[in-house]
């Protein structure tokens, strides 16, 4: 069987149709889009078309609200730093404990500079408390930044409602929608979202291309200054091939969005049902009723994620883990800690994330090998005894030093 890729929240394969669109921009239309000659005269048109394709996918009102950036991370940094530069008197930021590091690290830095950061906690299912959120909104808040969907669990936050609430208080609202765009339908013109980040490589476009959606009229301060590209809102010669590729990828994503929410979802559902039926002591993390259609994150108790990934890899299956060891840090993923998942489970979480390139036979293959992998590792585990966990595991094995 050929190798199985179930790590689409990490990054995706570039769609061959996207590659085809891009090639002429490397070999023929390679002129600088600002130049006046025949090597460049098709480029501006290509960029314009791409902008419209992105616009169609996210449903914004104007194509000039699309700013091309180099990645999701750049869009996130630009959004937050713009909001605080444009409103120097507002010294608070609202975000959540489960954001991607591309938001959290920026907030950590601003905290050192004197900003107050409200990091909203989540409950055991990864959900926010909107009453607590309402109480945080005030005139002192420069920006709210809340992810649309979580990269690890796929949990969806009610960002449209939250943007309304922020807007009612006159507070700017940004969402990191890197995981949501292309997987769930959206229509930004009917929301109060002021800024949104997306990243090409999560939706079958190349790596190194992103978008910051900036609602017309939102106060803005550019991060990268220089040339007049992107109307002076993001200087730097346009990555024309990737922009055109991203445009095509957005067009395809829109075409497949129904497929994503039916067929892709069916694969995900079959996998997680099969795994939780066959394997004792495992559970799905996050808000199972409110998730991306392509993502499942399962905690296999009493074993460790990196070991699971190594055995999966040997079986030709690619996935991800929230374990500390895969990142070289000492703590398991901050998302698992935020949901208060016990350590004996948090280290053993595995995320399977699908795309339209997967098929049911791959699901069956994972279902075939996974029970054996879990059993093998449990046999080695000091928390496991024969057919089940040792009684009172955290006490029965309580090693020296913490």
């Amino acid at each position, binding site marked *: 069987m050929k190798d199985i890729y179930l790590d689409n929240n990490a990054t995706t394969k570039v769609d061959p149709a996207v590659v085809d669109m891009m090639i002429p921009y490397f070999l023929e239309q390679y002129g600088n889009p600002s130049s006046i000659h025949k090597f460049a005269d098709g480029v501006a048109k290509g960029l314009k078309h791409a902008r419209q394709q992105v616009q169609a996918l996210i449903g914004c009102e104007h194509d000039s609200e699309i700013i091309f950036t180099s990645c999701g991370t750049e869009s996130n940094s630009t959004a937050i730093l713009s909001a605080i530069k444009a409103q120097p008197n507002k010294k608070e930021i609202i975000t959540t404990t489960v954001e991607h590091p591309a938001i959290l690290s920026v907030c950590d830095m601003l905290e050192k500079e004197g900003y107050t950061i409200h990091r909203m906690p989540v409950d055991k299912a990864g959900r926010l408390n909107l009453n607590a959120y309402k109480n945080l909104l005030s005139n002192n808040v420069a920006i709210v930044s809340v992810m649309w969907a979580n990269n690890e669990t796929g949990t969806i936050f009610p960002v449209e409602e939250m943007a309304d609430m922020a807007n009612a208080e006159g507070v700017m609202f940004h969402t990191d929608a890197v995981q949501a765009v292309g997987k769930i339908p959206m229509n930004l013109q009917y929301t109060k979202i002021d800024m949104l980040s997306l990243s090409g490589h999560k939706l079958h476009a190349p790596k190194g291309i992103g978008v910051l959606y900036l609602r017309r009229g939102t106060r803005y301060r550019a991060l990268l200054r220089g040339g007049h590209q992107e109307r002076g809102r993001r200087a730097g010669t346009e990555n024309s091939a990737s922009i055109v590729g991203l445009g095509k990828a957005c067009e395809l994503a829109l075409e497949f969005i129904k497929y994503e929410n039916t067929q892709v979802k069916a694969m995900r559902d079959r996998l997680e049902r099969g795994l939780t039926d066959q394997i004792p002591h495992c559970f799905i993390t996050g808000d199972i009723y409110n998730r991306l259609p392509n993502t499942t994150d399962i905690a296999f108790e009493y074993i460790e994620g990196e070991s699971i990934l190594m055995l999966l890899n040997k079986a030709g299956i690619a996935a991800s883990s929230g374990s500390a060891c895969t990142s070289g840090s000492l703590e398991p993923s901050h998302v698992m800690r935020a949901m208060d998942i016990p350590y004996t489970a948090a*280290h053993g979480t595995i995320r399977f994330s699908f795309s339209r390139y997967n098929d049911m036979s791959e699901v069956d293959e994972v279902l075939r090998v996974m029970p054996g992998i879990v059993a093998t590792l449990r046999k080695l585990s*000091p928390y496991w005894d024969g057919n089940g966990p040792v009684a009172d595991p955290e006490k029965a094995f309580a*090693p020296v030093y913490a």
Partner: protein
Amino acid sequence: MWDYSDKVKEHFFNPKNAGAVVDANATGEVGSISCGDALRLTLKVDDDSEIILEAGFQTFGCGSAIASSSVLTEIIKGMTLDEAAKVTNQDIADQLEGLPPEKMHCSVMGREALQAAIANYRGEVWTDDHEEGALICKCFAIDAVMIEEMVWANKLRTVEDVTNFTKAGGGCASCHEDIEAILEKVLAEKGEKFDPTAAPVEAITKIAAVKAPLTNLQRIKKIEQVLESLRPALMADGGDVELVEVLGNTAYVNMTGACNGCQMAAMTIAGIQQRLMEVMGEFIKVVPASEMKKLVNIEVV
């Protein structure tokens, strides 16, 4: 994913001596569930000869934790307890043909489980002084706890000081921001403020030393004496140190045995350096001999 050696993969995919030894008479349990690595080592020791007849491991952890546990049991089977007590984490890492710096702690965990099991057999209580923080410097595998301790103990004030005392930050320099954050934190606890332009601790010591400068010969003799006095302690940990060269106030040493090349070696080097400075009353920098060529060239230029 990590660049694991073939040996690590071999022990991970086909672990040796997995599971608890039936009728074991020695058990060592170490690790930390919050960090995601924990190990129980069980041994069956022959009461007359003190030879380890059987060894088994149960490990909750990543690939290298399982591989370290597996290779450890292979190393110690057939050894006497006294021999086993000399096994170092470097021996474990060497048997695995090396571990990534982020994973060196897996081999340390192996050694500690072994120490704990031996203590358990002998009816002693094993305590460890092990405290581990987030890995700060990837080039030299130095963690936050160690840097904090050195900053406290030696009144360090700048990144350069930290590099001089721990090596952290002396490679690619990408950890300097994190080291500054630690300095800021510790200095704030002491009621001081971090000033990146502060004179290095080294310079202050140098001025003090000018009063009674040692000749180079005196200095070398003194260094030898100090190393001699430290040797028993090092050998107890399975290591040794050899003085290779003294250039100005820099002593180049060869660390052998225990921990050579890992976090512990840096700690040992820093410890030796501190002891030398205390005894000699002047700034002495202790550097692994492997660094000699690099540094000498820089000094000549």
